């Protein structure tokens, strides 16, 4: 679907991975099979609404806490840390 030359290197929880150009941080999390956060009662949660409303996709991006990863397009070397 995408050419590998278009792939962007990022880090998800310290692990290097490559995503296609235009991939959002939320999709990188989904694609890797990770959770985006842990709920108050300890449930793993994944992105839900895809449009910046629900906050289920929030994670740390490049050192900034509680970012809505569905609104952020992956950039070269981006570091995403999920809870």
């Amino acid at each position, binding site marked *: 679907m995408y050419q590998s030359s278009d792939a962007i290197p990022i880090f998800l929880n310290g692990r290097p991975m490559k995503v296609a150009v235009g991939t959002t941080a939320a999709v990188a999390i989904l*694609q890797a099979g990770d959770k985006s956060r842990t709920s108050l009662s300890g449930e793993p949660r994944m992105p*839900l609404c*895809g449009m*910046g409303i*629900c*906050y289920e996709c929030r994670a740390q991006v490049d050192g900034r806490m509680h970012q809505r990863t569905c609104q952020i397009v992956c950039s070269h070397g981006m570091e995403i840390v999920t809870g």
Partner: protein
Amino acid sequence: MTGSADVIVVGAGPGGLEAAATAAEAGMRVCVIDDNSSAGGQIWRSGPGERNPKTERLLRRLEAGRVEMRFLSRAVATPAEQVLRIETGGRFTDIEYSSLVLATGGRERFLPFPGWTLRGIYGAGGLEAFVKSGFDIHRKRAVVAGTGPLLLAIAAHLREAGARIVSVVEQVPAQRLARFSLGLLRGHVGKLMEGAAYGLSIAGIPYRTGSWVTSASGGEQLEKVMIRSGSRILEVPCDLLAVGYHLVPNIELAQLLHCELEGGYVSVDALQQSSVRGVYCVGELTGIGGVDKAEIEGRIAGLAASGQSDGAKPLFMERDRHARFAHDLDAAFALRDELRNVPTASTIVCRCEDVSYGALVQCRSWREAKLHTRCGMGPCQGRICAPATKFLFGWTSPAPRPPLFPAEVETLAHTTDVTA
């Protein structure tokens, strides 16, 4: 930091872009803000490196004018009369305006059911957005469920993206749907539904009307959903569930500005002006009616906000037709009572604060629920659970207070430098 504009447009979807382009063509200084990283809104969202041709055409009209576009930006507060506080990447700007056009669109309505927090369950529009942003769903078995005219189109798109659509599940009974479809087959949404239904039926995908998801289960990941279909209960194995119950308008900013509401939507006059002078509302805010309605309302608001009210008059009749259509759409896809019995005591209703149905059922109002359970007090500020509790319990939630979204301390603490 401060700035000023003749017209601020909040929301760069079809309605907002049309309003902005129309005002800019009349020589207005326009500022467009949007929460997303690019223009087009949810409906014209495009994949990596692409852009919807309709968005493209509107952006070209904007480029010719005095227009400032601010993406990844949100209106968080109204620090003074005719001043909007906008946060971008943790920094805020106060912008003074003469007219304000709200085109904040809608969001999916989610209704809770047992298991709905499992991996593999997404909003219907949500999953479509993820797919457009690179999520690979090749060969995944997907159920598309909920209600609304978009379900079929979403199912068709997911299929194009490589998913195996197991079933499309619509809670509206077939009879009501047929009556409704006959009335609108000539309209955009009718064509959309008809086309998608045709494509899916060719592929042998069942469109189950009068049916709804009663629960989902699995270990680490969704494995199956239970579907109530007439008198039967069906067990449907699947990897993905895309579920949404039509749309609700994003009225929070309009509420913060004290715009009057009626039936859950913002009341507007013939020129799209709300009860607050100089504040215009277009698109889903005034009734869930889709792109065509948003565009013509945006055009009317753009004309009105740039002193060309007379030029808007020839558009009223068509706009009124779209407004009636939005009304019919709400009636056609009204939620059935049985959906209120779907959650069990342990079903999470407020996902931010993990508040269960069992805890909420003991409360008598939204206010009491907030005080006793923290329902609606998490970062989404009730945007997901308030529409659900409105349906489940009949609760109404009061107008929001600033900040409209979780904001940086500096944004909250600062008084405005603008002397409006």
